[in-house]
């Protein structure tokens, strides 16, 4: 395939990974009003889990994906366990620390993760059989998976479970008085969300065949917050749209920054990251409902007796 086609395929696949991360964040932020500032950590956790299972332990790729889902869910469970009874601020701090700790471990446990060299040679499904078409097929598979996860989350959202979750978001006390076990709802939602983020990580690793600690910068978390906020907090479709918008924004600013003369590469990178941060603040301020606002159906009226 030509360079441009390859570039487009790469964008579609990367956008898919971001879309999964955005769906993951939307489930807890939009669904239950919790935030995960350590999204990059769960992304890394899944990528490493799958890479280690397939490369170091020689397991099939499917086992890598399942392993990533399990490890992600367990990670999410551990992180929320100590904080669900507390104010949301505490979960925010713990998730930040979690991501940083994952990065430390990835960098320093060289016997396991090969440190900053990263793990290379991660197998891709049917890579040999597909040859030059591998990237395109993988991107299509990623998009299909995004659609599947979106569909499942939408089912969840429309189910009584999703309604209870939103009740927790709106007012914990009221939900509790209505007999909902809010602790369980919050822990479960967070564990599912963490598993989806880990799945995105596994997908990333098998696509690029390489993972390293530097890939999982904390900045990714900011990208995803921007994606969900721009798309519309509480709307799964908005999260997917937002993820592709963020990719477009990142790529557009890459070309725009490179067009400014007399700047060093460090300055180009600084301008782009500055714009991402600024965009998030501006969206939260001027368009908090995002491009696709959440539908909140009106409460059913009691049938009139007259």
């Amino acid at each position, binding site marked *: 395939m030509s360079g441009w086609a390859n570039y487009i395929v790469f964008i579609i696949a990367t956008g898919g990974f971001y879309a999964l991360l955005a769906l993951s964040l939307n489930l807890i932020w939009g669904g239950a009003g919790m935030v995960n500032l350590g999204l990059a950590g769960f992304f890394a956790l899944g990528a490493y889990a799958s890479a280690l299972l397939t490369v170091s332990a020689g397991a099939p790729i499917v086992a890598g994906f399942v392993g990533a889902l399990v490890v992600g869910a367990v990670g999410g469970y551990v992180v929320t366990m*100590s904080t669900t009874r507390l104010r*949301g601020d505490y979960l925010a*701090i713990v998730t930040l620390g979690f991501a940083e700790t994952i990065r430390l471990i990835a960098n320093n446990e060289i016997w396991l993760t090969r440190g900053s060299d990263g793990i290379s040679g991660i197998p891709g499904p049917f890579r040999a059989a597909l040859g030059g078409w591998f990237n395109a097929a993988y991107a299509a598979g990623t998009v299909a998976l995004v659609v599947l996860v979106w569909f499942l989350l939408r089912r969840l959202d429309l189910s009584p479970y999703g309604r209870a979750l939103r009740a927790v978001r709106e007012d914990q006390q009221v939900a509790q008085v209505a007999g909902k076990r809010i602790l369980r709802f919050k822990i479960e939602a967070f564990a599912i969300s963490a598993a989806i983020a880990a799945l995105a990580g596994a997908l990333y690793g098998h696509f690029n065949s390489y993972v390293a600690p530097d890939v999982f910068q904390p900045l990714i978390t900011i990208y995803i917050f921007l994606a969900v906020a721009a798309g519309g907090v509480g709307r799964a479709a908005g999260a997917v749209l937002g993820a592709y918008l963020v990719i477009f924004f990142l790529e557009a600013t890459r070309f725009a920054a490179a067009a400014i003369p007399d700047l060093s590469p460090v300055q180009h990178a600084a301008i782009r990251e500055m714009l991402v*941060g600024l965009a998030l603040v501006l969206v939260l301020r001027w368009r908090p409902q995002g491009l696709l606002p959440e539908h909140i159906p009106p409460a059913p009226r009691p049938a009139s007796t007259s």
Partner: protein
Amino acid sequence: MDTVLQAALNGLVSGTILALPAIGFTAMFAVLRYPNFAVAAFATLGAYGGWMANAWLGWPVVAALVAAFALAGLVGACIERVALEPLRPAGPLTVAIAAIALNVVIENILRFSFGNDLRGYDLPLARDVHFAGLRIAPQQIENLALALAVMAALFGFLAFTRIGKAMRATADNPDLARLKGIEPRRVELLAVLVGAGLCGVGGMLLGLDTSVDPLTGFRVVLSVFAAAVVGGLGSIPGAVAGALVIGLAEELATLAVAPTYKSAVGFVAILLVLTLRPRGLLGERAY
């Protein structure tokens, strides 16, 4: 034995410096009721502010410290008024997310202006002081003294001045404070000014100890959060106690695990405290 004592001494020194940004973070939380995650950027701003005053203008350390406080404090107050305050109706978590975004913005403005190079203060090199088998650099002693002086000034400000008392009253009970005629917006702005300023002073002292680059603040931010949480989020004496605990734990941990795991100590401390005693050493409540 000596290595343990040496680690404890190092821990006390780093804990005392850590106390400044921890107080800043916890004080902003106490008054504004949201975690201002831009503290890393405030600390880095202070480090650059002090460095510019020292290396470019030739100011001595104490004057540079004032510059560090002023730069970080003013930027903190500006972003509070312009960007964060209007978001408050959307809830504390939205404000916290915006603060993280602003942290990225500030960090990258510094990176754009100064690059990623390490900057050092223009100070004479001095030989380490030895006593009782322990070793400490004169710069560390000076930093310790400066940090203690700043803390003493802060406690004096909170205990004896009118506006300091108003700040404590607002932190304690905002409604009652307003009933007493305390203007909440003024107090809030002052809390950010002082809180971000303290982060700046802490960042400069860290820069004196090591070097200044766009990630100077980010490298300690987890320890700062840990100190505030261990001490009890919102409690200023708690932040001091928490910072000493974290400083000691981090240094003592280096005896057992690789020094690169220092910031993981903070994470473990946060998990332990939140599981066993969420309100921390001296805090009030956490739910």
